[in-house]
């Protein structure tokens, strides 16, 4: 799923990232547990989360996660934005809950990791 479609389906705001055609994601994972994210063998996925701290971005970098969607109107801090720019992680914010965003994206073809 293209980044533009993820943004459209979840009414998301693009906080960090520019090229909407660059990312074509096949799978997504929803979690607030970074320990769990670090056990994934799948790369280049969308991470949907309610967690907002710089360690989220660092974890995405380490786990080869291209795009992070912050759910339920959670706002990225200046520190998160700076780090996401530095390490090349795309950062989105949606007003939808994790459940709603996950459900809509699943219904539209974005597959689960498990």
């Amino acid at each position: 799923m293209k980044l533009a479609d993820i943004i459209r389906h979840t009414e998301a705001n693009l906080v960090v990232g520019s090229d909407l055609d660059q990312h074509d994601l096949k799978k997504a994972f929803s979690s607030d547990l970074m320990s769990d994210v670090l056990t994934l063998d799948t790369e280049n996925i969308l991470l949907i989360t309610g967690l907002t701290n710089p360690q989220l971005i660092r974890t995405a970098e380490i786990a080869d996660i291209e795009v992070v969607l912050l759910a339920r109107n959670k706002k990225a801090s200046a520190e998160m934005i700076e780090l996401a720019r530095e390490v090349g992680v795309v950062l989105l914010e949606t007003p939808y809950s994790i459940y709603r965003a996950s459900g809509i994206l699943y219904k539209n073809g974005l597959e689960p990791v498990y």
Partner: protein
Amino acid sequence: MKLEFDIASGDFSQAGQASSRIKKVLKQLQVDPKVIKRIVVAVYEAEVNVVAHSLGGQIIAEFSNEYVEITVQDCGPGIADIGQAMTEGYSTASKKVRDMGFGAGMGLPNIKRNTDELSIESTVGKGTCLKFKNNLNG
């Protein structure tokens, strides 16, 4: 090539910087991305452990043509029962650490899963030394 990083206790704003730097070096060495991911996930788990649980420590990464060897040494407090610490789900993490999305008792098991060779030695009151080695050619 050898890289050394000092890791401060409790400083989550810096946690992951050593892992990030090691990832960049492995990319420059054109190591397979799946091999890089295993190595840096293990380093990152260890780095977060030093920040979250120890009094501070050091990470040393030594690169050869075939292997990367990582040594993570901290200044205490040490692990009383390493077998228990290696059990998935066992954790002594604080609420602060859990609120950051860590401390689920998955760190050491995940390090073991992502490394080719792993050894842990710990003395209560002195510190813990974790060493692991991964083949760069998969």
